[in-house]
């Protein structure tokens, strides 16, 4: 008798996010919703100049205001907590959570106020008087490298945070570079493309700014923290270390988190300060970031200058690539700051088999907000530099941009493919992705459409970009925090399933995707599965959500733990059903013997039995709760191809995106609807970078685009309907075959929009345009072309 499937298989289905109803209805609990009796509010006095020595700091008026509990200066705070730690093995200057003598960027904290409410706290901040001796602001990146107009940190001459490191062909384990092969490649080239490109600074702008509640309980000697973070377990470890507490004395909770985009990986001064202040005063304190603060006090993204040289034959076969990277990291090293541009080096091959590559990297301090991870973190920059160079090569040789890429792909039979940059691409079929995208977009027809539009005088262009990403970040050798993820799965007495994951979703939809997997694994309804996350007291261990790793690493840990529970449950069910455990089937809420679906026991009854096991089967402990750690042996490498069509207004220079086709291969998909949502979000941010987003500083180091009135965020009206197509090349790195998709959208879209815009303006002789593609910038190219 055939089994009737009552419960559908959920993995692979377009299930709507379970998280959304509560979030849409305003029923989520964010940090700002946390209220504790006696809670005080803290606010920061921040530097309004980019560089200066504090000559006078008068907090007396602020302290005397009614409702002010305390005011701490940097010097006072320095007695409570250690200097800020970083998470990378690079040299770093002393960084105090609150500046002690010198301020180095607009937004750096100089004092903190503790008061009974936010209004009093803010009034007190305004009452603090600071006098600075201004120092020259270091703003221009390449000038900064000469130590001009000032040196920001005395121990870092010429503002060099990280002296040049090299990687690629001919670089040995000690980092010593032998340039013979790269020089030969360029000597043999018929054509060399050289271009300076800026991958500009961006402001992450999560919808929910940061925030923290710290509650130190002197009676218990323990600290509980709620924070809008992507990784509560890392927060716990770092805060414990900073305050000299044991990790067991600190509980960190990430409640609902309204987006992070990488900027909530870093553990911030405000988190350490809140914890220290709560401990010092014995009072719970809350800090909620204002939007104006978020623009300057939350880390920025990107800001890498690349000098790109590409050597090729006249047939378009690439012989060599030189990538000289200079990263503007702002005023300090934060948690992962120094490591982010190394990912740009790591991905210098992009999707291509390039015989010789030399990548170098220098990191430079400037008087700007520090940079750190931002959606894609180093990989969009690599994709951008290489793809732009490939476009320039195609244009130079008058070869179709698709064709020039086809001639250089890493062949699909070469995987796993070890690049000379140190990556091992797990699986891929780049030519297929290109072909699928060309077919989906109707590439030849689009070209005809473009040419017809040009005949009417319209400025229309096409762009195409390949990308390969590094996701599913692990193993521990590649991540100082540890490159694993942890999970615990419990079948409760009533047959409901509680699963705790060390992943810390903040918009990724893991409460849905993880439940889909467990519901399938145990043959129970989705509603019977609860996913817990973001609380170190509930989830014993964890790393967190970043690097598109939740599904690939966290999801695998979860099904591993699930498999362990299931195996134990089968041991309880076997004797009840007088069957061998290997013959049992979990389906439709029933555990039955294979081939005898009506013989079964309900899942719930077996669960109850496991908790009151009379009799207790030989060799079994009661209960159904197991955990697992999963550490992948390698990262995953999702890939894809994006195609766009852009029209530029000849009179105004305004670019308009007419069409965007994205073919993305993220491996096995658990929930295509959520995957599409992730891609849409990534595309929005990638297109935003290309067209409108830009952190612009003036010569004094003031952020000119420091509010939503001036910093343009992409809106739905900026986009055409995205045309998506999924391709599935499973990864061998984890049993799910899933690679990760959180960041992918930002990789292909950005260079492909720039390519399309350059193509649209080709008649004016332009070969490359730096982002953002501001109308005035394009208008000037059009004007210049006429002159």
């Amino acid at each position, binding site marked *: 008798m055939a089994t009737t499937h009552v419960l559908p298989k959920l993995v692979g289905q377009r299930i709507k996010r379970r998280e959304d109803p509560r979030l849409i209805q305003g029923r989520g609990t964010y940090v700002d919703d946390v209220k504790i009796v006696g809670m005080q509010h803290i*606010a920061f006095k921040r530097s309004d100049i980019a560089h200066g020595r504090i000559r006078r700091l008068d907090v007396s008026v602020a302290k005397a205001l009614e409702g002010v509990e305390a005011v701490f200066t940097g010097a006072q705070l320095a007695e409570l907590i250690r200097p800020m730690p970083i998470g990378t093995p690079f040299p770093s200057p002393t960084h105090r959570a609150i500046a002690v003598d010198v301020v180095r960027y607009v937004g750096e904290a100089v004092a903190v106020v503790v008061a009974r409410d*936010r*209004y009093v*706290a*803010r*009034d007190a901040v*305004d009452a603090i008087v600071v006098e600075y001796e201004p120092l020259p602001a270091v703003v221009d990146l390449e000038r900064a490298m000469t130590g001009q107009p000032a040196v920001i940190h005395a121990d870092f001459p010429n503002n060099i945070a990280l002296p040049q490191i090299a990687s690629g062909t001919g670089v040995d384990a000690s980092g010593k570079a032998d340039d013979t092969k790269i020089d030969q490649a360029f000597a043999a080239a018929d054509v060399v493309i050289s271009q300076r490109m800026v991958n500009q600074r961006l402001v992450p702008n999560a919808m929910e700014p940061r925030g923290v509640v710290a509650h130190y309980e002197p009676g218990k000697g323990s600290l509980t923290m709620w924070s809008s973070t992507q990784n509560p377990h890392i927060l716990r470890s770092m805060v414990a270390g900073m305050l000299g507490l044991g990790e067991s004395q600190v509980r960190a909770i990430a409640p609902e988190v309204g987006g992070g985009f990488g900027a909530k990986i870093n553990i911030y001064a405000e988190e350490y300060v809140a914890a220290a202040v709560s401990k010092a005063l014995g009072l719970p304190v809350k800090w909620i970031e*204002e*939007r*104006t603060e978020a623009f300057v006090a939350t880390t920025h993204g990107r800001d890498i200058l690349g000098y790109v040289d590409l050597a090729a034959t006249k047939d378009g076969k690439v012989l060599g690539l030189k990538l000289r990277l200079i990263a503007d990291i702002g005023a300090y090293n934060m948690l992962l700051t120094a490591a982010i541009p190394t990912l740009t080096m790591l991905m210098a091959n992009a999707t291509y088999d390039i015989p010789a590559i030399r990548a170098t990297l220098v990191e430079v301090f400037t008087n700007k907000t520090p940079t750190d991870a931002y959606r894609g973190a180093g990989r969009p920059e690599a994709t951008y530099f290489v793809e732009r160079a490939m476009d320039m090569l195609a244009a130079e040789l008058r070869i179709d941009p698709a064709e020039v890429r086809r001639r250089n792909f890493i062949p699909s039979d070469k995987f796993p493919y070890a690049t000379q940059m140190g990556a091992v691409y797990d699986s891929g079929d780049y030519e297929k992705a290109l072909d699928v995208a060309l077919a989906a977009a109707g590439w030849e027809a689009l070209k005809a459409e473009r040419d017809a539009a040009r005949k009417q005088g319209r400025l229309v262009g096409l762009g195409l970009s390949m990308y390969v990403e590094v996701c599913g970040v692990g193993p521990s050798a590649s991540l100082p925090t540890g490159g694993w993820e942890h999970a615990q799965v419990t079948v409760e007495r009533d047959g409901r399933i509680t699963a705790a994951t060390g992943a810390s979703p903040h918009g990724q939809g893991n409460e849905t995707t993880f439940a889909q997997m467990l519901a399938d694994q145990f043959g129970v309804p989705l509603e019977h599965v609860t996913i817990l996350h973001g609380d170190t007291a509930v989830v014993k261990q964890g790393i967190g959500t970043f690097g598109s790793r939740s599904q690939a690493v966290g999801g695998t840990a979860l099904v591993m733990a699930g498999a362990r529970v299931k195996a134990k449950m089968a041991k309880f069910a076997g004797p009840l059903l007088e069957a061998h455990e290997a013959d049992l089937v979990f389906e439709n809420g029933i555990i039955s013997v294979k081939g005898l679906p009506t013989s079964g026991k309900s899942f719930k009854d077996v669960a109850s039995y496991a908790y009151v096991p009379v009799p207790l089967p030989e060799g079994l402990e009661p209960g159904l709760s197991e955990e697992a750690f999963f550490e992948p042996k390698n990262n995953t490498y999702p890939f894809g191809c994006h195609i766009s069509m852009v029209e530029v207004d000849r*009179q*105004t220079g*305004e670019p308009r995106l007419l069409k965007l086709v994205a073919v993305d291969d993220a491996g096995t998909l658990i929930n295509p609807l959520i995957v599409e949502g992730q891609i849409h979000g990534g595309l929005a941010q990638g297109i935003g970078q290309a*067209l*409108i987003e830009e952190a*612009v500083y003036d010569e004094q180091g003031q952020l*000119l*685009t420091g509010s*939503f*009135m*001036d*910093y*343009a*965020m992409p*809106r739905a009206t900026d986009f055409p309907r995205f045309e998506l197509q999924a391709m599935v090349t499973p990864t061998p790195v984890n049993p799910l075959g899933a690679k990760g998709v959180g960041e992918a959208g930002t990789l292909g879209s950005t260079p492909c929009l720039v390519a399309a815009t350059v193509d649209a303006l080709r008649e004016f002789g332009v070969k490359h345009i730096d982002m953002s593609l*501001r*109308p*005035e910038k394009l*208008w*000037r190219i059009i*004007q210049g072309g006429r002159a």
Partner: protein
Amino acid sequence: MIPTGFEYERATSVADAVARLRASNGAAKLIAGGHSLVPLMKLRLSEPGRLIDIARIPELCGIRQVGDAIEIGAATVHHDVATSPLIATRCPMLAEAAAEIGDPQVRNRGTLGGSLAHADPSADYPAVILVLNATIHIVGPGGERVVQAATFFKDLLTVDLDPQEVIVSVRFKPVVSAGYAKLHQRASHYAIVGVAGVLDIQGGVVRSACVAVTGASTHAMRLSNVEHALAGQPLNDESIHKAASIAGAGVAVVNADVHASEEYRRAMIPVFTKRALEKARARSSA
């Protein structure tokens, strides 16, 4: 983003609002949609001790036909102007301009009177109000007075309005052959340059034209040289092109910021003047 402390009260009528303003001795400010005032308060650039809310005063809301004129209450939100069938039919330029203000959130909260009183140099309404030769009806302690749009906008964020006065309504004779064209600032969606144009056409000849620009300078202003160039000319591509090409030539102070240099803004005035006039022409023949 934390304002200083303030008191809040709601006025029940225009007379009540005026009385409350007067009683506050300059400490109070009016609030309707709050889309200009609240951001300033959050940045502590404006620190009123009291807010008098006029958003729900019935006599300040709504769009009415009064004889051959249209009257729009000062507290009418942009969305209502953008979607009013009366405006769409009788004065489509105004609906067009209202529909391009900011974003849906702004359009559903921000009001006509608030926009005019605040007089942001890049706001859309002022240019439109200027070319419609609208009258602005104001009530204050001394009673009602009527101000011509042409004399209302004085300078940067400065209009002919006493702190104790309330804008009640705007009145104008609707015109179909008019257009508004705008270059959007891509963060705020204010106008980098916005041009409104009205054409009075008879027998294919422009009897008179009214053209005004916003976004370019300290405040919205008429482009009289363009108006003169069009007056008496046959309406065709050439006359529009010729008139538009001198748009902005007489404007002494042109803004420059991170979004657009003075050079670019100057270059865009003729572009958007032409577009506005072409829209007006298209509507005149429709």
